[in-house]
């Protein structure tokens, strides 16, 4: 008679009882299987020759210390050589996934091309093929909207950082969630099957400063795993091709920064000397010859023309001379004829003398007029005085005009209608335009220059400088009165009389000067003298 028969059945079951119930339930379900798959180790005491080999031999326990064999229950304790080798995976159709390596860090649905067939060109499809058509409008619009919304969110986040603090947004905090936990039972959740959770968003402190420091620079994370290379490796370069791309070092004709000593042939290598023969066109020679010939011909022509002209001129001159001679002759004849007429009338000598004088004067005047007409270079007296230099005027004693005493202005100032930038003359250095008129005119200078009067040296010598100069009181070598006349000295050295007459001989030789005709030279001098006298 146990206590349990009296008491009513318990409503709540304890943990141990629950476990026992579960175990019995499991055992009952397992008993329908044909073969029991559990392999239990033999109980303690019956393990003499038993060695656990497989994982199931351990049951749900650990290693057996009394069995002296290395045991790894639950694979614990084995030295694992960590390798990053991927386990071979197989896809749904049973084919090995060889691109598992290429897809290591990425999601399953990322597009990665790694098969050979991805590299092969596909069949050329018709244009209307549905595969090649763009997705329809609605799909595109939907995508657009989604993208726009996402981008807006991003932009607003970025801009919000710059915007000032506003009032906190009110979020409707009334979300209720019904939750069914996976661990069910009487002990959990007081036996209830589901739970209701009230979800509220935590209020953000509007005045809170930023929580995290974003001014730190951290190194970039690793990039995404590289995509498989879908082309054949670059072709190997042949030696010939490599030689084609060889660039020779630069040897400048001007710079040598490191001061290298480079042989001359390398220095001039880039010049291209000796690589090309210089060809000169033969037309150059032809041109030179043609020019030479033309030059010669031109010179000849010019000479000929000059000669012809000279001849013509000479002829003309002769003709003119003839004419003049004739005219002169005629005039002479006329004059002689007139004179002959004049001689016949007027018998008085005085009248004749007066006539002669008048005649001479007229002739002189005519002569002058003729000269001035024929030889205009010979200037008249007036003209000569005008062109004289200051020093000449002074020497001749010409009268000088008076200067005006009033102030003189630069005549260039008056009557100007030129602009503001005129007068500079472009910065020319050579012109000398400081004054507009000569200083005092050439004629003025002469009168302003110092002219000593006759008695300039009055204070020095007294009044009569001339009488003083002509006095003959002071004479060198004057003897006393009554003294003997010594030999008159001709020069500082006096020679004695020479017996042989060499002096004479030498003097004569000097006079003639090598010319045999002594008489002509003497005559020429006399002739010139005469001519001069006659003229004046």
């Amino acid at each position, binding site marked *: 008679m146990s206590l349990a028969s009296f008491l009513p059945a318990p409503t709540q079951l304890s943990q141990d009882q629950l476990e026992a119930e579960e175990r019995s339930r499991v055992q009952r379900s397992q008993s329908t299987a044909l073969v029991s798959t559990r392999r239990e180790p033999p109980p303690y005491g019956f393990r003499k020759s038993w060695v656990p080999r497989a994982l199931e031999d351990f049951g749900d326990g650990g290693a057996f210390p009394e069995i002296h064999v290395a045991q790894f229950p639950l694979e614990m304790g084995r030295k694992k050589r960590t390798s990053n080798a991927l386990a071979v995976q197989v896809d749904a159709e049973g084919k090995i996934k060889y691109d598992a390596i290429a897809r290591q860090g990425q999601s399953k649905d990322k*597009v990665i091309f790694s098969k050979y067939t991805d590299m092969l*060109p*596909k069949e050329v499809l018709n244009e209307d093929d549905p595969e090649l*058509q763009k997705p329809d409008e609605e799909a595109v619009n939907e*995508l657009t909207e989604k993208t*726009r919304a996402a981008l807006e969110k991003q932009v607003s986040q970025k801009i919000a950082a710059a915007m000032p603090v506003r009032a906190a947004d009110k979020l409707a905090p009334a979300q209720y969630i019904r939750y069914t936990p996976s661990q069910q039972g009487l002990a959990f959740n007081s036996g209830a099957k589901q739970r209701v959770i009230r979800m509220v968003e935590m209020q953000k402190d509007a005045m809170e400063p930023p929580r995290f420091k974003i001014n730190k620079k951290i190194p970039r994370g690793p990039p995404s795993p590289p995509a498989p290379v879908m*082309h054949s490796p670059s072709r190997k370069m042949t030696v010939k091709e490599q030689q084609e791309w060889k660039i020779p070092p630069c040897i400048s004709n001007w710079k040598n920064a490191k001061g290298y000593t480079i042989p001359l042939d390398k220095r001039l290598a880039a010049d291209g000397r000796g690589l090309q023969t210089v060809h000169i066109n033969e037309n150059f020679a032809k041109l030179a010859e043609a020019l030479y010939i033309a030059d010669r011909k031109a010179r000849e022509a010019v000479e000929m023309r000059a000669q012809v002209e000279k001849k013509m001129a000479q002829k003309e001159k002769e003709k003119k001379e003839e004419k003049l001679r004739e005219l002169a002759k005629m005039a002479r004849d006329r004059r002689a004829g007139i004179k002959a007429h004049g001689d016949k009338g007027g018998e008085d000598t005085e009248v004749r003398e007066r006539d002669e004088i008048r005649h001479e004067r007229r002739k002189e005047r005519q002569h002058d007029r003729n000269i001035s007409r024929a030889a205009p270079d010979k200037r008249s007296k007036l003209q000569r005085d005008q062109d004289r230099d200051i020093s000449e005027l002074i020497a001749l004693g010409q009268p000088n005009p008076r200067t005006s005493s009033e102030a003189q202005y630069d005549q260039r100032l008056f009557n100007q209608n030129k602009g503001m930038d005129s007068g500079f003359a472009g910065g020319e250095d050579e012109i000398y335009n400081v004054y507009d008129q000569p200083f005092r005119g050439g004629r003025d200078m002469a009168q302003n220059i110092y002219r000593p009067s006759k008695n300039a040296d009055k204070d020095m010598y007294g009044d009569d400088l001339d009488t003083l100069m002509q006095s003959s009181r002071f004479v060198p070598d004057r003897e006393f009165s009554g003294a003997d006349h010594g030999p008159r000295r001709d020069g500082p050295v006096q020679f004695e009389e020479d017996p042989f007459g060499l002096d004479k001989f030498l003097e004569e030789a000097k006079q003639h000067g090598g010319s045999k005709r002594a008489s002509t030279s003497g005559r020429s001098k006399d002739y010139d003298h005469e001519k001069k006298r006659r003229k004046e």
Partner: protein
Amino acid sequence: MFVLLQDVQKHSVHTLVFRSLKRTHDMFVSDHAKAVALDDQSYKMKMAVKMRAEYKPVLHMPVLKEGRERGPLHASDPYGQLGYPLPGALPHYLVTGTHPYPSAPGVALTAETQMQKMPFLNSGLLPRKAPTMPKPQWHPPWKLYRVISGHLGWVRSIAVEPGNQWFVTGSADRTIKIWDLASGKLKLSLTGHISTVRGVAVSTRSPYLFSCGEDKQVKCWDLEYNKVIRHYHGHLSAVYDLDLHPTIDVLVTCSRDATARVWDIRSKANVHTLSGHTNTVATVKCQSAEPQVVTGSHDTTIRLWDLVAGKTRATLTNHKKSVRALVLHPRQYTFASGSPDNIKQWKCPDGNFIQNLSGHNAIINTLAVNSDGVLVSGADNGTIHMWDWRTGYNFQRIHAAVQPGSLDSESGIFACVFDQSESRLITAEADKTIKVYKEDDTATEESHPVNWKPEILKRKRF
């Protein structure tokens, strides 16, 4: 069993062989060329056994009426090949049963089953046939009809206005010039950049012009006032190209600092920095369908980006040399990329490789595509190749002469673009001119025949 031995005659091996030969000869000499005649009974038995052994579970299935009709009419291939030779000369195996699949033994043949083609035809598994090359579409050749000079430096970029009235060019002389499309006269010159202007784009949604240059500047010009109104600051090095998103107010620029940046037009904020390339990003294109941003770089890869997350969606590493040019097909869901080794065509959205267009062995600076399927590739040595988009047939090669006064080495094409009517091709060149091409109207299929010699073995080198 030893009793039989007595009956067997002992012959020599030679005799035995000879006898066997003779018998064979007698049996087959008359019809040695003929195939072995099928014995009906043995065949029936064989078929019955086979059916029961292998197809027993499906024998009860109903006949597919549609399958029977479809067979002889056309092969269900999406390739549009009407001339595809159906294997009609197959022997008609006698099938017992009314079903397309062999049915239970003993059922008599019917006429319907006799008409059947091979069963595996209807199941859609076509036998692998020799790849037949499709014939390329004929396009009239293009000829130069206008040369516009006015820039003082290389003309680096071109964009055409959505209304097709004018087009903009950016040049190495730091100016942006706007030209009238119909007459080719200069309308406006904009200055503001301090270095070469590498990219220009005209917005379709607002009266803005965007330009980017080697001076790290990205400028937004208001075309109503002809002034700069916004700068997008953030690039660390020369900006090489830019593109506008067709539906969202977003600008994408790519630069020598190996990034592409996504800017919000109105707020000038740098929304995403698309990093991942390891060398200069040379070109970028935007579209409204996925992938929304495609970039090509000097590290020989093309990346397709997810604009929402700002992450790479796929990386295409098929090119061996720098990718300097990208173009999106206006009608199809495909795009093409150009590099000195090949021009490759890809399918959106994942970038599946379609085909190679090889033959233009020069640095390809630019690509442009027509709605008619004309692909233009412009190279750094001044040559232009015209391709048929679908087949990859190069139908024309143009090398325009340089402007008088320029050296012959100064020929190169930096940008080319079709106008909005797609009848004029405008190219920006290195001899400081802009050249306009149009289709030659006088050419016909006979005067310029299609000389299509496809390489059967397309699996050459990649």
